[in-house]
């Protein structure tokens, strides 16, 4: 017999979700309040840009490259019956720039960086390093959360562009090597797609606006959730493990849900 959750259980779950959302919003407000970060802020930001941005390049590069290669193969299967294999570039450009580049970068960075942030902050919490920071006159939100959030918000859009470029390059490679699409035709189709989707303010390609706004929001989401779970870690090393898992799962799910609503919004606005 299937046991349905009781109304009390559902109520408790909703309460927990609302309280967590409230705490994350409070952390967001506290982070905004300590902007731009005071003494040593630039140094801390640079260190995080390296940890979050530069060191994520290989993983994002590989993800983008192989996603683009797979997209080219799948697109050719769909387009071949109509004799439209030459348009593979358009299919890949639209998919990578608007969706896959931003979402894959967001999720890959949430996995690599989100886990790292939650584990680091969680370990600091359970070993009293956060208390030590406070006793030495430093606020954890200022020295730990703010540089990570700023770095993620700045780095993820750039990583998404790298994923886009790698995806297009991978698709171009597969198209010319296996699908008989000349490189010139592939890139021509890709550029046509970007032009056809229009420009914002007559200057910035609409696809690129989507491809940059989304990862900016994803960067904020994954870093804030990772910091939130790390700062709340309790119960020794086991608690750090739980915080890490929660950070990655909640960030990945939130990115996917936010992507839907952002897409709807951006389709109207851009």
């Amino acid at each position, binding site marked *: 017999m299937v046991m349905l959750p009781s109304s009390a259980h559902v109520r408790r779950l909703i309460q927990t979700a609302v309280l967590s959302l409230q705490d994350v919003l409070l952390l967001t407000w506290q982070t905004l309040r300590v902007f731009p970060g005071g*003494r*040593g802020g630039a140094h801390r930001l640079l260190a995080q840009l390296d940890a979050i941005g530069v060191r994520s390049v290989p993983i994002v590069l590989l993800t983008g490259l192989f996603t683009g290669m797979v997209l080219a193969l799948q697109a050719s299967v769909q387009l071949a019956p109509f004799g439209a294999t030459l348009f593979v570039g358009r299919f890949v450009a639209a998919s990578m720039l608007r969706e896959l580049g931003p979402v894959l970068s967001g999720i890959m960075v949430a996995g690599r960086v989100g886990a790292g942030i939650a584990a*680091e902050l969680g*370990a*600091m919490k359970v*070993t*009293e*390093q956060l*208390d*030590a*920071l*406070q*006793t*030495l*006159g*430093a*606020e954890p939100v200022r020295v730990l959360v703010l540089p990570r959030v700023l770095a993620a918000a700045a780095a993820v859009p750039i990583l998404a562009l790298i994923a886009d470029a790698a995806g297009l390059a991978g698709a171009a490679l597969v198209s010319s090597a296996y699908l008989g699409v000349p490189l010139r035709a592939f890139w021509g189709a890709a550029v046509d797609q970007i032009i056809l989707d229009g420009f914002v303010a007559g200057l910035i390609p609409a696809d690129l606006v989507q491809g940059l706004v989304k990862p900016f929001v994803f960067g904020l989401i994954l870093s804030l959730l990772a910091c939130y779970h790390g700062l709340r870690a309790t119960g020794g090393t086991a608690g750090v493990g739980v915080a890490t898992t929660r950070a990655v799962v909640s960030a990945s799910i939130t990115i996917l849900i936010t992507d839907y609503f952002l897409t709807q919004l951006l389709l109207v606005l851009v």
Partner: protein
Amino acid sequence: MTPVNPMVDRVATVVDLDHVSVAFQRPVLRDVSLHVAPAETVAIVGESGTGKSTLLRLMLGLQPPDRGAVRVMGADVNGIDRESLRALRAKVGMVFQGAALFDSLTVFENVAFGLREAGVLSEEAVRERVFETLALVDLDPAQIAQTLPAQLSGGMRKRVGIARAVAPRPALLLYDEPTAGLDPLTSATVTDLMERLQRELHVTSVVVSHDIRAMLRIADRVGLLRDGAFVFLGAPEAMRASAEPYTQAFLAAA
């Protein structure tokens, strides 16, 4: 039972805990009062879970009391704004049980952290102070400054933790189990170091420890907590002579 009121002149006190109570799932501290005079060393001893560390967290404003008042250097720790609390904490040094050194920073950066946050000293003066403080805790600055905490032994980590706490030359020094987890020899070395720091820096100290023998040696007064309340608070000699049964049992077990 020995009277709990230490009869310290309140105007000249560094720490004032007045009828403080704290409860988490159960009562942790029950109507505790403690007044610490300048340059005095007060040791708080007791079994695990009797609220010893909570007393220190109260003094740092890391834990608000459910009832009662906590004043440090005359300031109500829970009634002042964020900036004032930050300024107050800058005058208080804390030595954590596990040292709580920042793993990603070198020994030098750990000891310099509070000095750099305060932003009073130039970088050259910070460097001088860090080297001087490391030497004060019997560590060779030239050898250890660029080492990461993970590469240090337990005793060395503890000494770096003490150096980090005393580097800004605080008016009040709080120790949370400074000898916990150390072998007897290292434990004795750390206790000697604490005694020497008191002598050389004349800093007011509150030490939470389970090491009653060491505390009887270095403290001006010893407080024994049981179930969140003092059963004894007085001079070491008075403690040794106390007829209070729990105090006698605690000393006998040490």
